[in-house]
Structures are given as C-alpha cells and as structure tokens.
C-alpha cells in the first residue's frame, strides 16, 4: 500500500474504505536470526535497516507494550546535528542526512520540518565557545551560523533581550535543524520494516536471556521462548533493568525528563529556541501548542512522571525568556525515562556475551538520533563491526579513558 496524494484523493471518493492496517500482527515464531528487543524508534529503525539496507531476513522486533509507547512517544521532537566532539558530530550529521530523506525512503509523512534550531548566547565567553562549536559542526559537514543580536532580534523579536541576569547577545543557528512528527517516525519505520518481512510483535515482554557457553541462545518472553542468532537490545530508559537480566551493570542511571505542551496558539515561534543558561527550550507544534521542556528532575526514577519543582523551574525560565507566554495555559505534561550515561553520550556496541548487542545511553537526546542509531545498530548486528560514524560509542570507553563528555561534567549522570 503506497501513500500518495492520488491515493488520498481516490480514497476520498470511495469513502475511505480502502485503508488497511499499516503492519501485520504475526504470532511470534520459535526461531529468528535477529531479535530486536524494544519497539521504539531505535528498535524499529534497527529492524528496518537490517532488512532494507543490509538485506537480512528472519528478523523480529519484540515490544513489551505497543509500538511507540516509550520515549518515541514522549519526546519534544527536535532534530539537530550541532554537537562539538568528533566522536558525536559525524554521527548526528549522518542522522540529519537520513532525516532529510526519511519521508521518501519510508513513503510515510514524518512531518520533518527544518525550521531551524537556535541556541542563545548570553556572554562573550559563551559566544567564543559557540563559535568553536560552530566551526566543529561545519568541519563535520553540517551547517551552523552565528547570529548577531540584531539578526536574532529580527528573527525572534519577542524574546526578552534585556534580561538582567541573562541578556541575549546573539545566537547559534542550525538552519537544517527542526522538528519531526515523533509518532509518525515510529509508525513509518514499523510499516517499512513490516513490508520488508520483519515480524513486529507487540505485547511481548522479554523476561530473560538464555545464555550458554558465553553465547546468546535466545530470549524468554511473556509469549514463550524465542531462539535467536543475534539479539539487539534498544530499550532506552529500561536499559539497566533489561541488561541486568544478562548479568550486566551499565555505566548509566535512569532518570525522568519532563516535557510540557500548551494549548494551541497562533503561529508565534519560527523554530526551536534553546535557553541553555536557564534550562529551557521551546518550539511550536503544527497544531499550535508550545512544546517545551527543561532539565531532568535529577534523581533515579522509573516513574515516567516527575515532580513539581522542575515544572516550576521550567515555567520560570520560559517566562524569563519569553514574557509573552505568561498567559498561555499548560495543556499537558509528561515524563520519559532517560538512560543517562556517565559521559552523556550513547553506547552502540557488542557485549561480553557473544551475539548480544546493546544500544542505549541516549540520555536526553535520543529522538534526533533515531535514524542513525537504527542504521548503525543494524550495521553492527549484520556485519559485526561498528558503523564508521559510531565507532566512538564503545561500552569499554569508560575503562579505557575515551569518554565523550560534551558538557565536561564528568561521571555524574544528572548533570549531562
């Protein structure tokens, strides 16, 4: 079933009776070559690229709940590739390139909108550090532009430029950054994987790994044992819990990050604005809601909901930055589980169990990585070697001293 403008038109004439479910609902088989644990964005993308880009077959995705029930449905939909460090930036730029072709690739409307991402500058030293970041971004083949105060004011005149504590002196713009429709990304990858023969299995919780002689044999699930040649785990905030079943302790803690959306308003925000000094960022959805967030709550949590102090803090920051939103009412808020790693960067690697692979530690920034994470993980699963842009994401980088610490805050997960 191919989506097109013509199809929409033809269906309208037939009373929309021709639409079919986007994917099958197969019973799990007893045996697969590849089992991907976790049917979120990363897991579905992994299965899709395994089948499509690497020509593999006999693949299953096992999901405890429904597809997109985790962080792919709980994020703030921002895509960007404006990282500083050489271990990160080529990977995120690879992801951005995949975003740019995603809808054609999947024949699915993921509403990728490159409306620009602005990081605000408040001091001379911050401008210097952003200039350095911009140069690193450009060196990696991505785009970055330093904006003067006047240029920024022309783009976003409603900001409080003369805030006493954090006066706005300029901005770092990534014009190709923007937003995407988060659920659409999950559904698009699921549909794509299904059409390439991947078995997508929902309501199937992995309850254990069967390991013998240091090799993975399969997974125990709530729907019976499934044997597997290779198992890839991509379960985001539940990484610690799932990998503990394989006897592993991970360099990460699970934390809760909250996000908020206001009632629908007329278009006011041209793109994404981040106010790092105040722990606040905001964009506007196509429905008109202001989508915003702040920092993680800062303590270990598996609750998928946070506490009021952080809500208050984010609201205060928002009001300090954009006084005009003072009368907008918050419509909804929610929390997602972040697998906060010890250096703030992800892990895509094999483990000490042969055939068991791990993808996680995405901290607060996993959404933008979805396409590249899936591609790189599929590369690792299919070929046994890391994708060239994901070589730094090794599990043993902590013991070897090759951490990728973008914020420079050390082994303190709640500061990344």
């Amino acid at each position, binding site marked *: 079933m191919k989506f097109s403008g013509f199809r929409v038109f033809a269906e309208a004439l037939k009373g929309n009776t021709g639409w079919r479910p986007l994917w099958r609902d197969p019973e799990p088989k007893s045996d697969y070559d590849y089992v991907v644990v976790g049917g979120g964005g990363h897991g579905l993308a992994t299965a899709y690229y395994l089948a499509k880009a690497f020509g593999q077959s006999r693949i299953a995705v096992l999901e405890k709940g429904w597809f997109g029930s985790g962080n792919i449905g709980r994020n703030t939909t921002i895509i960007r590739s404006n990282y500083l460090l050489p271990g990160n930036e080529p990977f995120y730029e690879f992801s951005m390139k995949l975003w740019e072709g995603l809808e054609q690739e999947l024949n699915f409307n993921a509403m990728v909108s490159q409306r620009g991402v602005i990081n605000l500058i408040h001091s001379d030293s911050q401008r210097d550090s952003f200039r350095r970041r911009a140069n690193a971004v450009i060196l990696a083949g991505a785009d970055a532009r330093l904006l003067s105060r006047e240029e920024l004011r022309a783009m976003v005149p409603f900001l409080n430029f003369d805030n006493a504590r954090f006066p706005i002196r300029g901005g770092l713009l990534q014009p190709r950054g923007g937003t995407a429709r988060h659920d659409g990304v999950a559904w698009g990858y699921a549909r794509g994987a299904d059409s390439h023969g991947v078995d997508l299995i929902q309501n199937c919780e992995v309850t254990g790994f069967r390991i013998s002689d240091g090799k993975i044999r399969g997974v125990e699930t709530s729907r019976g044992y499934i044997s597997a040649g290779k198992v890839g785990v991509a379960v985001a905030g539940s990484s610690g819990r799932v990998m503990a079943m394989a006897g592993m302790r991970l360099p990460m803690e699970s934390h809760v990050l909250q996000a908020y959306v206001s009632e629908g308003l007329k278009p006011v925000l041209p793109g994404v604005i981040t106010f790092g000094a105040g722990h606040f960022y905001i964009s506007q959805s196509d429905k008109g809601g202001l989508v915003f967030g702040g920092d993680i709550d800062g303590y270990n949590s598996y609750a998928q909901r946070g506490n009021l102090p952080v809500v208050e803090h984010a609201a205060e920051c928002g009001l300090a930055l954009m006084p005009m939103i003072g009368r907008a009412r918050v419509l909804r808020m929610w929390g997602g589980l972040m697998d906060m790693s010890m250096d703030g960067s992800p892990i895509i690697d094999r483990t000490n169990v042969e055939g068991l692979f791990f993808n996680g530690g995405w901290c607060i920034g996993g959404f933008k990585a979805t396409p590249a994470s899936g591609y790189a993980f599929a590369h690792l699963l299919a070929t046994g070697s890391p994708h060239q842009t994901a070589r730094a994401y090794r599990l043993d980088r902590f013991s070897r001293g090759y951490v990728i610490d973008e914020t420079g805050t050390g082994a303190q*997960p709640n500061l990344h």
Partner: protein
Amino acid sequence: MLIPHPILGSRDAREFIYLGDVRLLDRPDATRSDAEHSFCDYVFLRDNPAGVHRELWFHEQGDRSWLVVTRNTTTHEILGAELARDVALARKRSAQ
C-alpha cells in the same frame, strides 16, 4: 518530595542536591593491585534498580549534611533517611 531529615524533620527535596547510589560511600582501596579495575567500577558502573534504591542526597540549602535516603524509584515514595555519617561509621565498624 519531602525528605524526612533525621535532625531537621520533613524537608522539601528542592533544598537537596542528588549525588547517586549509596555505594559511592564504598570507595575502593587504592593500594590493592586491582585498584584500577575496582575504581573504574566505582566511578562508572551503577546497579540502577527499578524499585527500592538507597542514595546520597546533600542538604545544600540546609545543614549541609549528607543523607542516605531510601526511596522507591518506581513510585518516588521515600521510605527513610539516615545521616550518611552514621551509615559510613556503621559500615566501618562492621568491616573491622
């Protein structure tokens, strides 16, 4: 969240700063031959349980004491709090 401070009574969690797993009290012995390995575990690896978690909180905007708080990470229910000093001393005594 309200943290039941053993000296000051119930205090708002926003007066505190969170550090992490209470195992950070168990600093490895730097003189042992496997110190490199054990320090790597100590600095980077965490149990990260879903459920009861014992963790270090610092009462920064209060009496600046370190507490060991027992909390359920799936519900945020706080089950108790002790002075980290008492916990550390008790461990030292039991290790002797």
